């Protein structure tokens, strides 16, 4: 019991913004609002909201790798795409009966994580630092996009699943819950909303515990000064690799949920533009905190959606401008700066987090 309460005590700590009853009451109010939201809306709008939610896992993973670990990974969309395609291939071949879609989800995420472990081994154990890490992961993503884009011919199929080149793969079954008296197929609607919301809360709280655990403290120490962390006796390569794999698995989860949501995945979801978007969400929100990343991602996605009505090219220009301005004016993120501003009058003791 004691160990359990210590475990949950890590929900707050030096590595996360927001502590004390005030924050958690606010958290519960937001959560209750999110739970009640489908009651005041129609299925179509709720389905669209799920679309926002699917991206947040990838953003949280990037926050962990980049914001907490200090490693610049531009390859999040590669893992997104790998898991998305893996889910499609598995479910098209084996169908959706007996809850197999959730097995496929686990396999797809595992494949993405395995790929990340392999790539990460070469990168981190080769001691690739800062700038190079970013461009190697980006190169991998771009080559993967080109590879998938040329799989249009009929010879490119795995079992019954045609890869379909640039047009992408479609018609895979959505996530399906086996249920006595008829399976529940999770189309973009209220049921999928609650499933994804549940996953999101679990991942968010789980990551809070992770970053406030000894693992998270070492991770932040590596971000602040890799040599010092190493001199203190930590094998920084293992910590970085572990973080990279967790982040990749989260990106993979996003990929699976996206593929299942739209029953569709294309190579362009891994392209240069697609790879830039997670960077925008996380940088604008505030990469060094999970909560600001979460809020920032939802905000930027909502702005993007609103702008896309007037044409997606304009929306992307605005995203680019937003990114440049954030880096120049609020390097730690707009939402992060706002959160610090709001939190200041409420907190009695200012802990020494920088």
């Amino acid at each position, binding site marked *: 019991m004691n160990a359990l309460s210590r475990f949950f005590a890590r929900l707050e700590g030096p590595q996360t913004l927001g502590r004390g009853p005030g924050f958690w009451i606010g958290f519960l109010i937001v959560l209750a609002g999110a739970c009640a939201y489908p009651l005041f809306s129609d299925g179509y709008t709720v389905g669209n909201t799920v679309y926002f939610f699917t991206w947040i896992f990838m953003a949280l993973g990037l926050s962990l790798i980049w914001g907490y670990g200090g490693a610049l990974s531009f390859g999040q969309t590669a893992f997104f795409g790998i898991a998305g395609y893996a889910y499609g291939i598995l479910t098209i071949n084996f169908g959706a009966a007996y809850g197999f879609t959730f097995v496929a989800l686990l396999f797809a995420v595992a494949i993405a994580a395995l790929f990340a472990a392999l790539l990460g081994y070469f990168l981190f154990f080769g001691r*690739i630092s800062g700038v*190079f890490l970013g461009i*190697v992961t980006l*190169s991998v993503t771009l080559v993967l996009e*080109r590879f998938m884009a040329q799989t249009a011919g009929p010879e490119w199929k795995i079992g019954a699943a045609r890869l379909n080149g640039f047009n992408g793969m479609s018609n895979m079954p959505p996530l399906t819950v086996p249920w006595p008296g008829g399976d529940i197929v999770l189309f973009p609607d209220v049921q999928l909303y609650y499933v994804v919301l549940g996953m999101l809360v679990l991942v968010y709280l789980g990551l809070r515990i992770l970053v406030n655990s000894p693992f998270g403290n070492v991770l932040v120490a590596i971000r602040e000064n890799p040599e010092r962390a190493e001199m203190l006796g930590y094998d920084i390569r293992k910590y970085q690799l572990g973080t990279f794999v967790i982040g990749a698995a989260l990106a993979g989860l996003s990929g699976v949920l996206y593929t299942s949501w739209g029953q569709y995945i294309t190579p362009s979801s891994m392209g240069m533009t697609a790879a830039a978007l997670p960077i925008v969400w996380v940088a604008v929100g505030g990469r060094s905190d999970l909560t600001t990343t979460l809020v920032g991602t939802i905000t930027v996605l909502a702005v993007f959606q609103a702008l896309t009505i007037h044409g997606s090219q*304009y929306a*992307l220009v605005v995203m680019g401008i937003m990114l440049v301005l954030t880096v120049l004016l609020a390097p730690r993120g707009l939402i992060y700066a706002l959160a610090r501003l709001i939190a200041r009058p409420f907190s009695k003791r200012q802990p020494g987090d920088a």
Partner: protein
Amino acid sequence: MDVGTLAFSALYQFGDAFAFLVLSACGLAVIFGMMGVINLAHGEFIMCGAYVTVSAAHAGVPLPLAILIGALVSAAVGALVEILIIRHLYDRPLDTIVATWGLSLIFTQGTLILLGSTMAGVGTPFGSFTVGDYSYSLYRLVLCGMAVVVIAGLYALFNWTRFGVMARATIQVPHMAAALGIDTRLVYSLTFALGAGLAGLAGGLYAPTMTLVPTMGTTFIMEAFVTVVVGGADVFLGTAPAAAVLAVVKATMTSWYGQLAGQIGLLMAVIIVIRVLPRGISGFLLRERA
């Protein structure tokens, strides 16, 4: 087919790959080697050079002059970007990557909005010649020559001119150079403009051989990244040998399995090289020499 034509074919493909790698990477390498900044908008400077070149050529300017105009316009845009954005981020190298990525989004989409999804190109000049059973484009040989000229020119610039001496001093110990009266901010601006201009030159040179689309920069950027990563921080001891080694890999894989295999081969090569030589070829050479 006799051995001579076969050897020529292999040499031609190697030269073609070498020229592409050198020309697409040198701008990125100059900026990275001199300033430690990776310019993710590199591909967009190439695109800028290509668009300006083709526009000038359509307006009746002869092609060599049009390419020069393209390079100069890119250099001017580069100087502007340095003054407005990069200058403020020198103490935060990771943030320059993010900021230049934002720029890349703005440039790509801005071009798409302003100029449409494609632009009429100009034909490849000089025609072709045949050796044995195959015909080869003469322009590709010109590109190959240009790659050598660019490397030689950069060598001369950095070793034999006043700007070169000041730039190397600034790179070695910035505050010392500043104390000796060198305007280091100006040197950084000029270096960035030089890198952007070289990117524009690459765009101008390759403009006649490819379709002009706003996303054409991504065609170059992977090869440029790989060459700079394998080469390391030095342009002459790094980029040129890296391009030579990678050109062998690329030409072999491409003639074997096609264009994409060439790129995958490059990527495999880079991942293996960074595992063995984390500081690239130039890091390895310089440590041997020291």
